[in-house]
């Protein structure tokens, strides 16, 4: 009975469990820090379990739809509504399921890591509640099949994120980063809202499937597309709208930064969902595809060149995050540019998209890992300045190992996961346009150069007198980092399995606009 209820309500529970967890956290926090930590970790474990079961369900039996407030989950179109789905509907296809999995894995790592990293701060009840709400925002964005609902979760994501960026006040600097993030997110949110209003005004619907089946690509739709792309690409941190990322990423507590990476990927998912599912073939896919490719190339190149001169290790990693986002945009942009040509799509378009999508989960793992190692170093030494750090390889061996794994993965060195997805992108993009592939490779080399420098200045050299007291990071931190690095290595050793099980269904779900519409509106 219980099991049946859970299995029938997976998409709702995916949101309801962390939400209930977030709301109850302040109350349970009254009982003491230990009880609260246990509770939040249990909630996050339950969320991850639900995400895994949901993903398995989606992969075995196709897109899962969930209608809120209806007699049954698959009752998308009420009998007396004239064929219009009036209720809020979650449409979890393989792409969405893939994103929920990626987000909840990083969420668990971050939660474990936070047990130590936040243990010296005040106001931890609020911290964990907001952390869980941020997870809710991310999961909601990638599950929802309703434009307005997407906006609501985007706002939850932005508000929780901004509050968490400013969590460690740090003489007001973090508050500045948080305010910047909040203002820009609100601006982006308003653009999204306005675009949704334009679509709603024309097609009398908010459901993505209904909108997709009716969309005409009128001038108003084009304006809506531009606003959606600009706002979501900004939230994803793509150049030239990347300027908030260094401030927000470097000032947030490291655990939060790792989750912010996933939060920005949820916006990236929004970009893909809008262009592939909402607009699909109606838009001028060659032009839009090239726009996304150019955004990607700019992000890759500007991100990495800005990263090289940075002195602050987290700021440096933030610019690398911008740079890596470029790979995802490049891969999926190439897929979009050949969307209308089945032959080219088969020969390299799909591979490019798979590479881009694979890079999303890889990036979430290794970039999360790198931010967590930076946080561990900051936790023990109290500085993020590369010029002051040094010789930590003597005392923080495990952190060093995890850093090496993350750094080699981000630079695309085999056998780590970054190599697997980057190789797919190089090979397919080379067939599309050799110049783009060469730029991508050069950026990878620059990334490696930059991380060699970071590695050298943090870990190498003689033991410095001011860090003589520094010890290895606490165990919960190591477990959090270990979880992510294990996945980095596993995904790197068995890329083909991951691609077959998770990535290929996700890419084909993204291309299959008709399937998405049919899953909500039936037959068609």
């Amino acid at each position, binding site marked *: 009975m219980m099991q049946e*209820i859970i299995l029938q*309500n997976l998409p*709702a*529970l995916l949101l*309801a469990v962390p*939400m*209930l967890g977030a*709301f*109850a956290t*302040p*109350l349970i926090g009254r009982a003491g820090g230990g009880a609260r930590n246990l509770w939040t970790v249990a909630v996050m474990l339950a969320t991850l379990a639900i995400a895994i079961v949901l993903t398995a369900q989606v992969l075995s039996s196709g897109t899962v739809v*969930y*209608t*809120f*407030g*209806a*007699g*049954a*989950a698959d009752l998308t179109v009420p009998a007396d509504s004239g064929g219009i789905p009036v209720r809020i509907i979650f449409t979890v296809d393989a792409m969405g399921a893939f994103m929920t999995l990626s987000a909840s894995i990083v969420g668990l790592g971050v939660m474990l890591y936070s047990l130590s990293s936040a243990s010296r701060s005040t106001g931890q009840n609020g911290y964990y509640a907001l952390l869980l709400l941020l997870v809710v925002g991310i999961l909601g964005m990638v599950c929802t099949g309703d434009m307005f609902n997407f906006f609501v979760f985007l706002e939850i994501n932005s508000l929780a994120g901004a509050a968490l960026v400013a969590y460690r006040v740090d003489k007001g600097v973090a508050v500045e980063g948080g305010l910047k993030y909040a203002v820009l997110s609100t601006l982006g949110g308003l653009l999204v809202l306005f675009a949704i209003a334009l679509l709603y005004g024309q097609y009398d619907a908010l459901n993505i499937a209904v909108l997709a089946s009716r969309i005409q690509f009128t001038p108003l739709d084009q304006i809506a597309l531009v606003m959606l792309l600009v706002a979501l690409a900004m939230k994803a941190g793509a150049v030239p709208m990347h300027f908030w990322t260094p401030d927000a990423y470097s000032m947030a507590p490291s655990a939060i930064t790792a989750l912010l990476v996933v939060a920005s990927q949820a916006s990236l998912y929004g970009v893909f969902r809008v262009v592939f599912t909402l607009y699909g073939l109606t838009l001028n896919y060659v032009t839009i595809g090239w726009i996304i490719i150019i955004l990607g190339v700019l992000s890759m190149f500007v991100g990495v060149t800005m990263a090289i001169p940075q002195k602050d290790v987290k700021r440096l990693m933030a610019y690398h995050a911008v740079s890596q986002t470029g790979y995802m945009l490049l891969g999926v942009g190439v897929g979009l540019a050949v969307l209308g040509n089945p032959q080219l799509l088969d020969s390299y378009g799909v591979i490019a998209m798979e590479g881009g999508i694979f890079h999303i989960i890889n990036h979430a793992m290794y970039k999360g890992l790198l931010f967590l190692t930076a946080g561990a170093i900051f936790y023990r030494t109290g500085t993020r300045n590369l010029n002051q750090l040094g010789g930590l390889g003597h005392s923080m061996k495990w952190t060093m190992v995890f850093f090496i794994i993350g750094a080699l993965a981000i630079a695309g060195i085999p056998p780590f996961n970054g190599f697997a997805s980057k190789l797919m992108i190089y090979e397919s993009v080379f067939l599309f346009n050799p110049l783009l592939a060469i730029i991508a490779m050069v950026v990878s080399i620059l990334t490696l150069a930059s991380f060699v420098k970071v590695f050298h200045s943090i870990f190498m050299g003689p033991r410095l007198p001011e860090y003589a007291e520094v010890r290895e990071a606490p165990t919960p931190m190591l477990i959090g980092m270990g979880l992510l690095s294990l996945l980095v290595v596993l995904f790197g050793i068995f890329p083909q399995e991951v691609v077959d099980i998770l990535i290929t269904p996700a890419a084909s779900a993204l291309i299959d606009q008709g399937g998405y519409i049919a899953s909500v509106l039936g037959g068609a």
Partner: protein
Amino acid sequence: MNMSKIVREAANLLFPFILVFGFYIVLHGHLTPGGGFQGGAVIATGFVLLFVAYSYPQITERIGVGALHNTETLGLLLFIVTALIALGFGVTFFTNWMLDIGPILNNPVAFGPNPGDLNTAGVIPVMNIAVGIEVLGALSVIVLYMMSGTKETI
């Protein structure tokens, strides 16, 4: 620092009326314009009026920050639990399960102009109340926190 006696007395006098008006908006959320959020905001203005009229230490003596936090949490939990109970009846999240079970909040809605019946609409009034107490707690806490940062002059 207290405001003058006139302000304090006026605040004392107005406070119960603001509360009643706020709860009226919350409880009639499913019948008239307004609802949980609006009513909660009105109630919070009543609290803010008291905060302005009295000094911060005096206020925190009578109204604890912890109590307001609890109110907030209680509202949120009531909301999500009401939505979750629906799963137990074999329907989906957020379904109006009260309409199917009991005599409470279950009258059929009259058609055409009518004086309005509070005993309708199932879980909607419950969720309005939940949002109402959540908002009154949260807004009051926000103002109270901002007040704690102000410097007392004179």
